[in-house]
């Protein structure tokens, strides 16, 4: 019997992860011991402090390039860059989650267990303070995402996937209003997510089986072994291809790529808007971070095999997102389809096998995250007596009622449409240029064509807001509390700055764009 040795663990390099998970546990204790009226403040401060502390640790360790915990975690450029991105975006999402002045009691239900639409439910919707469990759940999810983008073997990646997915399923069900919709969204997300996880796990098993074929080397699911097996193994690649396909399904599900996107509109619509914002920004970063690592590190030797297939997925994703966005009448669903199309553009970047492709994708993730958070922040503000007014027809004439917020939303939509001087344009350039450089002109053409289609729904919203006359049903825009205002302003400022002066972040991304194997 071989002796088991404890792997050495670089706790300092893992600090961001440990901080987030530790504070999440602390948050559970706060739920148990701190009096109800103080919980909201304590939890919010605790969560924000944890994010900031983790961010500081990421910054301190930004030059680390190492494998730790027995090779299970890679602390390298992309991991640190994406962790930093997740933390900054998560901080903004936490600001939205913590907002309580826009709606009495916040966007979350007080007691999720009360039967939806019952008398009790209506009473709690009136203004009882929302559940504070959302903070530990969010913090757990952030912690899971931090592991997900740094995981250096497939099993760790799977654990991380579950760690950040399970809290998200719950968070989706916690909307204060339209609870049936929210619960349905959660249920859908959970069931489909469970399937996706199962696919992922099957894929891991098949890849493990494939790696056993290398002579003189033990089987394993760490990326170095997988990489070696892909390049050296004499075994038939059937297992590898099947494993890769199943793994991809699991990851593409989280990334909301077609044809694994069907949950996205329902979940984005049903979930409380701050959670939707969190998912649209942070989950996207995490999912694409994992995709980048899996395809650039583990399977890079099989690039010839997976690029055409994933290229088709990318084109399909863009098409589905763009074409279906045209028909949407609900702003949250519209943004959901737009996020699907954006997943397609991101995939184009993932498939560009170069340092520029990697850095461009990471740049895109950050830029898109800021814009989409700001977009959902505006959605939380447009409301009437029944909560958010998300039907597009209700936004008619908004520009007349509150030109400031309509102006901001217009700016974000122009960014989504890829108009220059916004981050939407620079980020599109950042992924299209390496793709064309790699000779994948067909994906770029598809990207350009779908961008045109996608411009139409964005423009329709702009027309709604500015060129239509306000009606009786036009809701007012609530004056945001400090938290939402802060998140909104950061998002808009980042969208502008990354469009006008993208050089610093691009340099940062380029400097970080090298994986440790």
């Amino acid at each position, binding site marked *: 019997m071989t002796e088991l040795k404890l792997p050495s663990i670089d706790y300092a390099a893992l600090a961001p992860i440990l901080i987030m998970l530790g504070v999440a546990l602390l948050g559970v204790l706060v739920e148990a011991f701190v009096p109800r009226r103080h919980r909201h403040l304590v939890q919010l401060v605790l969560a924000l402090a944890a994010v900031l502390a983790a961010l500081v640790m990421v910054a301190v360790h930004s030059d680390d390039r190492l494998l730790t915990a027995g090779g299970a975690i890679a602390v390298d450029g992309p991991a640190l860059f994406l962790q930093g991105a997740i933390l900054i975006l998560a901080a903004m999402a936490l600001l939205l989650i913590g907002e309580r002045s826009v709606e009495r009691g916040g966007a979350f239900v007080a007691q999720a267990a009360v039967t939806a639409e019952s008398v009790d439910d209506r009473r709690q919707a009136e203004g009882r303070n929302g559940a504070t469990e959302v903070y530990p759940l969010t913090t757990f999810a952030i912690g899971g995402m931090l592991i997900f983008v740094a995981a250096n073997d497939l099993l760790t990646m799977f654990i991380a996937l579950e760690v950040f997915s399970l809290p998200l399923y719950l968070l989706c069900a916690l909307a204060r209003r339209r609870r049936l919709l929210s619960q349905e969204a959660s249920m859908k997300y959970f069931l489909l997510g469970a399937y996706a996880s199962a696919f992922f796990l099957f894929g891991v098993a098949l890849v493990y089986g494939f790696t056993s074929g290398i002579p003189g080397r033990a089987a394993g699911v760490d990326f170095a072994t997988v990489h070696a097996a892909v390049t050296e193994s004499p075994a038939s690649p059937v297992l590898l291809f099947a494993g890769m396909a199943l793994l991809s399904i699991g990851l593409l599900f989280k990334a909301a790529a077609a044809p694994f996107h069907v949950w996205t509109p329902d979940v984005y619509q049903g979930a409380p808007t701050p959670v939707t914002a969190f998912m649209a920004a942070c989950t996207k970063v995490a999912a694409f971070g994992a995709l980048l690592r899996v395809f650039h590190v583990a399977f890079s030797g099989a690039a010839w095999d997976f690029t055409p297939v994933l290229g088709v997925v990318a084109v399909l994703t863009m098409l589905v997102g763009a074409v279906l966005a045209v028909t949407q009448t609900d702003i949250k669903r519209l943004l959901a389809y737009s996020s699907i199309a954006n997943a397609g553009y991101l995939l184009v970047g993932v498939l560009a096998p170069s340092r520029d492709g990697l850095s461009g994708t990471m740049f895109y993730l950050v830029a898109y995250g800021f814009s989409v958070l700001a977009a959902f922040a505006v959605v939380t503000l447009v409301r009437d007596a029944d909560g958010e007014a998300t039907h597009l027809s209700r936004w008619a004439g908004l520009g007349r009622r509150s030109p400031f917020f309509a102006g901001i939303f217009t700016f974000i939509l122009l960014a989504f449409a890829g108009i220059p001087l916004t981050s939407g344009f620079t980020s599109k350039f950042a992924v299209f*240029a390496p793709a064309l*450089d790699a000779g994948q002109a067909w994906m770029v053409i598809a990207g350009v064509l779908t961008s045109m289609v996608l411009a139409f729904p964005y423009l329709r919203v702009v027309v709604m807001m500015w060129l*239509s006359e306000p009606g009786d049903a036009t809701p007012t825009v609530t004056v945001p509390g400090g938290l939402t205002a802060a998140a909104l302003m950061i998002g808009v400022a980042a969208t502008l700055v990354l469009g006008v002066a993208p050089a610093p972040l691009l*340099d940062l991304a380029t400097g970080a764009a090298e994986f440790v194997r």
Partner: protein
Amino acid sequence: MSNFPFLSVLTVAPLVGALVVAFLPRWRPELAKQVAFAWSLLVLVLSVIMWITFQAGGDRFQFRESYSWIPAWGVNFTFATDGIALVMLMLIAVLVPLVILASWHDAESSKRSVPVYFALLLVLECTMIGVFAAADVFLFYVFFEVMLVPMYFLIGSYGGHQRQYAAVKFFLYSLVGGLFMLAAVIGLWVVGGKTFDWQALTQVDISTGTERWLFLGFFLAFAIKAPFFPFHTWLPDAGGAAPAGAAALLVGVLDKVGTFGILRYCLPLFPEAAKWFAPWALALGVIGIIYAALLAVGQNDLKRLVSYTSIAHFGFIGVGIFAFTTQAGTGAVLYMLNHGLATGLLFLVVGMLIARRGSALINDFGGAGKLVPLLAGVLFFAGLASLALPGTAPFISEFLVLIGTFTVNKPVAVIATLGIILAAAYVLWMVQRTTQGTLNPALTEVEEMRRDLNLREKVVVAPLIALIVLLGFYPKPVTDVINPAVQATMDDIGRTDPAPTVGGVQEAQR
């Protein structure tokens, strides 16, 4: 003085002015108008100084400035102007103050903020100057796309009938072209060794197939912008719905970006492809001349009619560019300037008529000359300039285009000449139906129709009339500036003029 950063200052100045105007209080619209007008005059003064400083016989590109922007992609803020761009910059600087003056009361009829209207006009001026002054392909693309945004809101917020439809159509058409160009821009960047510098890119050797695709990407964007047949359908809608001042800028300047882009980007960057596609482009130009002129004859809406005449004129410009002779090229550039003046004037005058009558339909007029003789006279003059009557500036450019084309391609020149006859038809018939003939009794009941041009309107039309007449008799100051740039462009594509068959004309030009 030639070290003064003219181009960047000219680009930024209107933007600063726009910010100032936008934040002026809404309840003091007069102040906003005055500030906007003063600001645009300032830009005009600066442009005039630049024009004087420009050395016509000097380097091809002058006033070059370059600042690093995105080093990772090799993007710089590079500005430089050749004679062609200089003429267009001058046209912008002249037109914007006049448009602001002409639009004095336009924004009041809509319920929207008056300062914002004038701020948008200044933003538009900033992007228009930037697009002509850019010498970096990326920078050019940025201005090319951003230009859409102010125009979109000018049409959509302050326009007339069907403004929403027209604004969205304008935006989507332009965006489609722009995105194709984006793909081509990225492609050019990849094959050109990851630089966006115009001068460096002209030196790059591109394989034939790639070159043709890239040419098409750029050409499509410019053909939609110009617009050439069959990409023109957005212009009558946009021109018909836009407020008269914005429409004057739209066809007067904005659309020239298309023809300018072909001259500056398509020909020098992809010379072989340009020659390969030239017959097709000539065909589009000729079809545009005839087709748009026929449609113009049938229009009953004044602004749409003027829009169609512009499409016909853009056909001439396209023919002039793709004939690949210096004469035709100079004629095309001169045409761009003269068309901006003549059609700008026509749009503004038509706008004055429409503002008085409250309708753009020709049937609602008739004999208006008896009520507003001066206005009718100016309309007649603008019409004559538009049909290229000898003695007006457009005649010289149209003539140059035709003789320059005739030396190399007789059929095209002959068919294009038919366009002149049709031009006489649509202009004279329009003038006759609106201002001549028996007085439409309904007109006498409109109080506004009894007021002839006021001082403000006279100030608007006078400089344009003066310029059209002046350049009609003495175009030399402009041709001196244009000629070397066109010559250089022809050198870029390796075309020399055929031996002159009518020797005197070339002599006269020199």
